[in-house]
C-alpha cells in the first residue's frame, strides 16, 4: 500500500471513483448467452446421464453465474481489491460446502 496515491475525493465520497462503461451490445450478449444456457439446461434434462445429471446441471448454472458476475456486474473491469472481495464470498461458500460435506461423506464410515 506504500505506493498508494492519495486521492482527496476518497475521504469525502468514495463513490467518486472511475466507472467502466459497458455497451448495450455487451448486455445483449450476456442476455443471449443466458438464454442459450437456459435452453441447454432444458435440453440436458431430457437425457439421463446417471451420476452426471447434477454435475452437468451445476456446470451450466455455474457458467451462467460467472458470466453474470464478470460482465453484467462489471467485476471483470474492477480493481483487484473488488475482485478479491468477490473471491472472499466464494471462498467462504466453498468452506461452507466442503466442511459440511466432510460430515456427510464420512458419517457412515465404519458403521456397516
Amino acid at each position, binding site marked *: 500500500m506504500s505506493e498508494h496515491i492519495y486521492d482527496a475525493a476518497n475521504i469525502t465520497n468514495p463513490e467518486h471513483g472511475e466507472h467502466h462503461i459497458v455497451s448495450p451490445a455487451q448486455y445483449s450478449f450476456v442476455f443471449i448467452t443466458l438464454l442459450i444456457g437456459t435452453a441447454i439446461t432444458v435440453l440436458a434434462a431430457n437425457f439421463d446421464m446417471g451420476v452426471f445429471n447434477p454435475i452437468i446441471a451445476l456446470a451450466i448454472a455455474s457458467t451462467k453465474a460467472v458470466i453474470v458476475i464478470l460482465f453484467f456486474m462489471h467485476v471483470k473491469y474492477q480493481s483487484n481489491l473488488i475482485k478479491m472481495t468477490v473471491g472472499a464470498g466464494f471462498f467462504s461458500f466453498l468452506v461452507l460446502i466442503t466442511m459440511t460435506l*466432510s*460430515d456427510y461423506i464420512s458419517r457412515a464410515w465404519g458403521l456397516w
Partner: protein
Amino acid sequence: MTTHNLVRGSNTIINLPDQSTAEIPKRNFISNEHGLLSWLLTGDHKRIAVLYLISITFFFFIGGAFAGLIRLELLTPQPDLVASDTYNKFFTMHGVIMIFLFLVPSVPATLGNFLIPIMLGARDLAFPKINLLSWYLYVIGGTLTLTALVLGGVDTGWTFTTPLSTHYLNTHVVTTATAIFVAGFSSIFTGLNFIVTIHRMRCPGMTWFRMPLFVWAHYAASILMVLGTPVLAIAIVLVALERLIGIGVFDPTKGGDPLLFQHLFWFYSHPAVYIMILPGMGVISEVISTFSRKRIFGYTAVAFSSVAIALFGFFVWEHHMFIMGVSNYSALVFSLLTMLVAVPSAIKIFNWAFTLQKGSITFETPMLYAFGFIGLFTIGGLTGVFLGSLGMDIHLTETYFIVAHFHFVMVGGMLMAFLSGVHFWWPKMTGRMYPESLSKLAAVVTFIGFNLTFLPQFILGYLGMPRRYHAYPPEFQVLNVLSTAGATILGVGYLMPVLYLAWSLKYGAIAGANPWQATGLEWQIQSPPLTENFIEIPIMDHEAYDYDWLEHKTQPEVTTVG
C-alpha cells in the same frame, strides 16, 4: 499540559480543564441541529451511534429482565414461578434479544460507528444513508421481536432448532425469524460500511499499520458480518418455508436432513461470537494502552490475530454439533481446528499482559472494566477448549457448564469491554465526565456480581445439571441460590452506569478534549466533536499509541476548532 508530570507520582491520568472557565464547545454534533427529525433523518455517524446506543440499551434491559425471571424461577428446585412452556419462552426471548439485538450490534454500531471515521481521520462513514438504513432495520427487527413477544412469545430457543421449530411448535416462530432476518441485514450494512470506510477513507499518512487496533478489530468483525450473516438469513428463510409450505429441506421424510439446519445455522452463529467479541477486544487494546502509557506490545501480532480469529472462525462450527450424530471423523477435524482459535486469542491476552509490564498503570474506571475483561475472558476462553475436546464435550455440553462458558465470554468478556469502552469514550461523546468513584464502584460490583452468578454454574454443569429446564434435583439448590443472588448484584452493577451516566449529561464535569491523555486522533479534536469531525482532514505523521508524539506535539497539530 504535558503527560510527563501526570504520569509520574500520580495515581490518575485524568486531566480536566479548569471547571470555573471550561465550557462545552458551542458548535458540536449535538447542538448542530435541533428537533426529533434532525435525529431520525441524520446522516451523521455520531448521531446514528447515539441512536443505536439508546436502542441497544433498551433491548439490553428487556433481555436482562428475562434473565432475572429465569434466575428467579431457578431459585427453588420446584417449578413454582411459571409453567414449563412459559419458562421456555423466557430463555428463548432472553437469548434472541441479547444476541441479535444487543451483543451483535453492541460495540460496532455504537462505539464503532462513532469512532471509526474519526480514528481514520475521515468526516463520516463511506455510506451515511446506508448507515441510517441499518439503524432503521435494527429498529424494525427489534419491533418485530417485541411483537412476537406480546403476541405470546416463541419457545424454540435462540437456535431455532429443527424439527422443533419447523414441525412441533405452535408459537410465533415465523415472526421472530423475520425479526432476525431483518436485524441481520442491519448488521451486514454496518459491516459493509466499515470495510469500505477502512479501505477507502483513511486520511493521508494513515497506513494500515498506523490504524488503532480498535479499527483492525472492527475490520475483522466486519468481514465476518458480511460473509457470515447471509448464511443465517438463508437458514432462517428455509425454516420459515419449511414451516409454512413444508419444502422438506430439513425433513428426513422428504429427503432432507435436520442436521443441515445445524450446519447452516452454526456456520453463521459460531463466527457470530467473534463478531461479538472482536470489537470488544479492540476496545481493550485502546484502554490498556492508554492506562499503561505504552504502545501495545506486538502491535502487528495483535492486528493480525484479529484477522486470524475471523478466518479460523469459519472452520470450527461443527463443535456445536458433536453430540448430534455428526461423523466422528469430521468431528475430529473440527475439534482440532477449534483448538487453533485459542492461539490468536492467547496472542492478544499475552500481548496485553506484556503491554502492562513496566507500564505506568493507573486504575480509572475503563481500566477496571478492562481488567475484568482479561480475567473473565481468559476463563471463558479456556473453558471453550474443554468444550472443543471431543470427550469432554460429551459430558459437558447441554449442561450449565456451557451456559457458564458462554456467559463468561459474552458477559464477562464482551459486556465488560462494552462498558469499558462506554466509560472510556463517554467524555468524548458527551463532553462530560461521570462521577469517578461511583463508576469504579459499579465496575467492582459488576465483577463481583458476575462471578457470583456464573462461577457456580460451571460446577452445576460439571455435576450434570442440564440447561433449559425450570426444575432440578434439590441437591443443586445451594449453587442455584448463589447464582440468583449474584444475578441481583449484577443487575445493580448494570443499573448504576445508566443512572450516573444520565446524571452526567447535565451535571458532569466538563471533560475537555483529552481527559485521559490518550493518543488517538479522536482525542485530538474537541468533545463532543463537530459534525464534520475535523475542520481539515488531518495528516497522520506518527505511529498509533505514540506517547512521545503526544507529549511533544504542539497544541493545534490536528487541526480543529479550540
